[in-house]
Structure formats: C-alpha cells, structure tokens
C-alpha cells in the first residue's frame, strides 16, 4: 500500500459507505422512513445532501418514500431510499411502478430477521427472493448484495450506474452486520469513479417518443419539466406512453423491459472468484456470509482441500452462466445462507451438471462462522 493510499483510508460503517457511494454516484435525492438497521443512511444523508444542493425528506411511511424517490427520479434527479424488511414490504407497490415506468432508482434494504417485525437488530438474508419477486406481476429487476464496507461504496456506485443505464430500479441487499461493521477503507478519488447518467432525448420535443424501442431496449429518458411533455403511467403503455390493451403492444412492452436487462447480462451480472481456477469444490456466498466463506476457503486450502469461492455481487438476474461453469468444474458446491435456502434454490435451478449442492442455513440471527463452512469443505 502506498503512502497516498494509506492516507485516504477512513474508518467507516457500512451504512456510511453506502452514503458515500451514493453521493459519489450523483445521488441528490433521498426519501426515507426511520427503521433499524438502516436509519444511519437517512441521518447522514439529511446532513450531507443539502450541502451538495440535494434534498432529503423523511416521509410518512415507506410507501411514500418510494413514491417520492420515483417522483424525483422522473424529474431528473438521481434518487435513493433505504430501509429494512418491514419497510421493504411496503415499498413493493411503488417498486413495481418504477419497473413499469422505467424510473431509475436505488433501494437499499438492510436485511434483518423477518417476517414481520422479526429480529430488528440481527442480521439475516431472508429478503433475497422478495427482492426479486416482491412486487406483483412479471417484472425485471436488478438485485445486488454487499459483503463489506468497501463493497458498500463500490456496489452503491455500481447500482446507480446500472439503474441509470437500464432505467430500472436496483436493489442493494445489505444486512445488519455489514451495515454496522466499522472498517478502514480506501475510497477512490472522484475522478477514478466511473459515473453513468441516463441518456436524455437527442431529438426536439415534438419528435420525442417516450417509450420508443432502440437497440439497447432502453428508451431515452426526458425529465419532467424539461419541455418533453409526455404521459407516465403505471398501466401497460404504448410507445407514446398512453395506456394500451392491444395485445401486440402489451406483449411488445413486456418483452422490451425484460430484454433490456437480458441484453446487459454481461455487465449486470457481477461475481467475484477466489481460487476457483483449480477448485474441485466451491462455495457460493453473498453478503456478510461471503467473508466467512473466504476465510473458510483459505483454511481449507491450508488443509490441502482444493476449495474456491464464488461470491455473488449480483443476485438477480441470477448469474447463471458464471455459476454454470463452476458447477460443471466442481464436484460439490456449498451454499451457506442466513435464510432457509433462497439462493441455493437458484443454484439448484441452474444445476445441469449434477454437481452436489450442500445447503447450509442458519436462521438464529447470528452470522455463519468460517468454521461451519470449513466443516462442510472438509467433509464433502
């Protein structure tokens, strides 16, 4: 580590790193509602946003928070909200609205034990499938997971970039442990961060078709109030944005919003591998569990077991291609999760190689320790 890098190191909590990442990515609007263990994000942004000319508002509930976030986004401002399970449940209605109107926005869900009020101060990964399928109807969505404080920064930047590029809500799944862990991290300089902004119309208003398809499948986006008057609706709409029930138009709409994500799989599906080149068995992990898994893999290697780690940053769209490669390469995979098996489900779904899948689920509100994973690695 160079001196310069060392000087840049700061002691941050996961929630604080998310704030730093959001601000670096250009987030200038936040609406939220207090909830443990996500409140620090609200608190810090209420301090920082006005300094940057941005806006913070505490709404009357999470439904309203999500509505305000979408409103601000449609008006051209990069927007975010942060919550935990119970609030995330309330947000689902308007997350669907963001999907159908293709409003870029970032939703941080600091997971705690559920359902309902559950275990407010304990970590969990119980909202994984909900993040994918929480709102009703067929919809594409991007779900990312953070495992460390430095992840919190970089993944948040990434989340904003993906949401702007694909005009889709992006959900960041954190958990109570990542949120409240303090670590020394080196944050990159502003000029080292790649920031993507939504593409605005390149034609005069009278030529603008708000939902016209293009080769990316992502229509150019005019902000409310920029002279491109158009209609935005939560109904299935045609290219002009008007409600439609014409079957060809309805099908075309659904296909486009799904395909715009699948066209970007290569960029959206982010994974990290560790010692996977010669691995014979591996761990698929995400969130705080990935850190335990990393330690377990190292320990296993020390014991001569050819273990590897595939860490999922992107949970959905599920990185099938990447997982598939390693399922074919290895004889067994261990999927440790702080839930009853929400990602192991996905792994089973894509497993065509008859790779043995070993689930390890812990739901007592405590972290999965490296030893627990190591035990599997040593015995499988």
């Amino acid at each position, binding site marked *: 580590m160079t001196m310069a890098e060392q000087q*840049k190191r*700061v002691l*941050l909590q996961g929630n*604080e790193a998310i704030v*730093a990442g959001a*601000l*670096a990515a250009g987030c200038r*609007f936040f*609406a939220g509602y207090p909830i443990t263990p996500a409140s620090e994000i609200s608190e810090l942004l209420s*301090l*920082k946003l*006005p*300094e*940057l*000319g941005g*806006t913070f*508002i505490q*709404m*009357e*509930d999470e*439904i*309203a*928070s*999500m*509505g*305000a*976030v*979408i*409103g*601000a*986004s*449609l*008006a*051209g*401002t990069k*927007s975010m909200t942060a919550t935990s399970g119970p609030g995330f449940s309330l947000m689902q*209605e*308007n997350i*669907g*609205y963001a999907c159908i109107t293709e409003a870029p926005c970032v939703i941080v869900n600091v997971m705690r034990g559920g359902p309902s009020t559950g275990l407010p101060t304990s970590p969990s990964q119980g909202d994984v499938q909900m993040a994918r399928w929480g709102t009703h109807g067929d919809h594409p969505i991007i779900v990312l997971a953070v495992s460390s404080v430095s992840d919190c920064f970089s993944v948040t930047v990434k989340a904003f970039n993906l949401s702007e590029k694909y005009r889709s809500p992006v959900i960041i799944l954190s958990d109570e442990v990542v949120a409240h862990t303090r670590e020394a991290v080196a*944050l*990159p*300089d*502003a000029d080292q961060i790649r920031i993507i902004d939504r593409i605005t119309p390149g034609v005069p208003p009278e030529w603008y078709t708000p939902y016209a398809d293009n080769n990316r499948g992502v229509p150019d986006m005019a*902000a*409310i*109030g*920029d*002279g491109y*008057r*158009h*209609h*935005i*609706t*939560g*109904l299935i709409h045609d290219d*002009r944005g*008007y*409600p439609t029930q014409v079957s060809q138009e309805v099908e075309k709409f659904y296909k486009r919003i799904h395909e715009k994500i699948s066209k970007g799989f290569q960029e959206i599906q982010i994974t990290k591998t560790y010692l996977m080149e010669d691995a014979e068995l591996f761990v698929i992990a995400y969130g705080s569990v990935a850190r335990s898994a990393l330690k377990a893999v190292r320990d296993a290697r020390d014991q001569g077991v050819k273990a590897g780690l595939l860490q999922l940053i992107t949970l959905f769209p599920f990185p099938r291609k990447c997982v598939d490669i390693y399922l074919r390469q290895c004889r067994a995979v261990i999927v440790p999760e702080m839930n009853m098996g929400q990602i192991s489900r996905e792994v089973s779904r894509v497993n065509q190689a008859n790779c043995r899948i070993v689930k390890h689920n812990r739901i007592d509100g405590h972290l999965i320790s490296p030893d627990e994973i190591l035990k599997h690695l040593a015995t499988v």
Partner: protein
Amino acid sequence: MLERAEIIRKEYLRHDKKFPHVWCPGCGNGIVMGALLRGIHGLNLSKDEVVLASGIGCSGRMPTYIDFNTIHTTHGRALTFCTGIKLAKPELTVITVMGDGDATAIGGNHFIHAARRNIDLTAIIINNSTYGMTGGQYSPTTPFGSKSTTSVYGHVEHAFSIAELAVTAGASFVARGTVYHAVHLEEMIQQAIRTRGFSVVEVISNCHVQHGRRNKLGGAVEMITSYKENAVLVGKAAKMSPEELEGKFTIGVLANVKKPISTEQYQRVIVEARKNSHKNSSEKEKNGIKRYEE
C-alpha cells in the same frame, strides 16, 4: 379570434388521445377537468411548467387527456410522487387530481402529511362519495345510511368531510366547490394554484351511475341540481342557524393562511448547509466522498 373553449380544446387536450373520454355520460369529472383547464389557462402558465398527477380510479384517468407533464401513479400515492417531483424541481407547478377514496382512504396518510408538511402542491379532490370505477363500493365520504355495493343494508360508518380534514391537517388553502358551480370552481382552483403552500380544492361531484342510482338520487341532472340547492357560500352559512344548515354544505374558501412552506424552507436549509460545509472543508468538496477523510 378563438373562443376560450376552442383554445382549451386546441391547446390543452391531447390530440393523439381518443375522445370522447372514458367517463360515463354526465360525469362530473369532465366538468372539473374543464374548470381546471380554464383556471390554468387564466393563470398564463406554460404547459411545460405544469405537472398534473393522479392516482387510481375514475379521476386517475384525467391526466391522460391533458397536454401537460402528466403522471398517473399508484392508488392513493399521487401526492408522494408529487412531493418528489416538487422537491427535485421546485420551479414546477404541481397539481394532483384525486378521488375521495384515492385521497382519503388509501392515500389518507399521504394527504394529511402533505397538508401538515405544507409543501407547495395543489390537490384537487373530486368527491363523488363512492368508488366509481370498481363498481360503487362505499368510500370514506359515503354518507351514513347510504347504500353501496359493499353496504347493501345501508352504510354503518360516518363520512369524512375532506375540506375540514385538510384545514385541520394544516393546509395553507382549502376550498370547496361543486360541479354545478363551475365558474366558482374555476376561481377556487385558480386561487389554489396561486397559493404557495399546500392547497386543497374539494369538488362535490356526481356519480349518478353508482352512488346516485343506488340511493335514488336521480341522474346527473338531478344530482347536480341538488348541489345548486344544498350548497351555501361560507360567508352566508356563518349567518345561518344550524337548523337552516341541515342537509346543506358550505362552498367557498374554508382556509387561507400564510405559513412557512416546506419546499421554500428547504431551500434555506441548502443555503445554510452549503455555508457550513464550505467553512468546514475549505478546498475539499464537490462530490461528498472526500468529506469522510477529515
């Protein structure tokens, strides 16, 4: 020279949108829409600076037909979207059209909090005492004893008085009008839009197809005539005895108070916060990350 009605049709209605609109024959929504457009036209606002939002229901269809920046949101949440839009672009004139169920049942919390917050929005609430689009179920403004598809034995609950609710919740401007008094309504809407701060116009409107039919209130003509007979101007009502006011309702301006507006107050917060941040971190700034290095 074009007549005003022609200007309204030519300038404000969407020409690529199919007319006639979806509402039933004689529905008050069309009258409210006319009053709204004439009101806005009279204020000389450019179409680009007006945002018209709605929730779900019959009223929710209104923005589709009008050539502003229009947004048809989720049920009851229109005010939350408008809050985001207004905060992101304070220079816009943001107007919400809601129904009684939309605004005070599913969106009741958002409604009272928008009023409490006194954010600079205009809410037009078309109160037809029922959920028309879903088939005439009872709403928060269905009168006690009335019949609806979900109160076939007569309604056992009591109705909200929307305008009074808005006054209590702290709105800057509150008025009530009816679809009979369309010119008056236009004035109320204009005043509401001109008012900085949260302003509410409750419009008593007719759903003769659902509410009227089930309660033997007659058709559109009879219902609208009853507003003519039962509406009393606020000033006049003050001089009337409770007995005289039996079965009547007031129209006109119910509240018009000056108080700090959250949208404007927040602009001050930004100025203040910027001053502080410059003081604290002389040359560092720009993107917020560097603030953590201190």
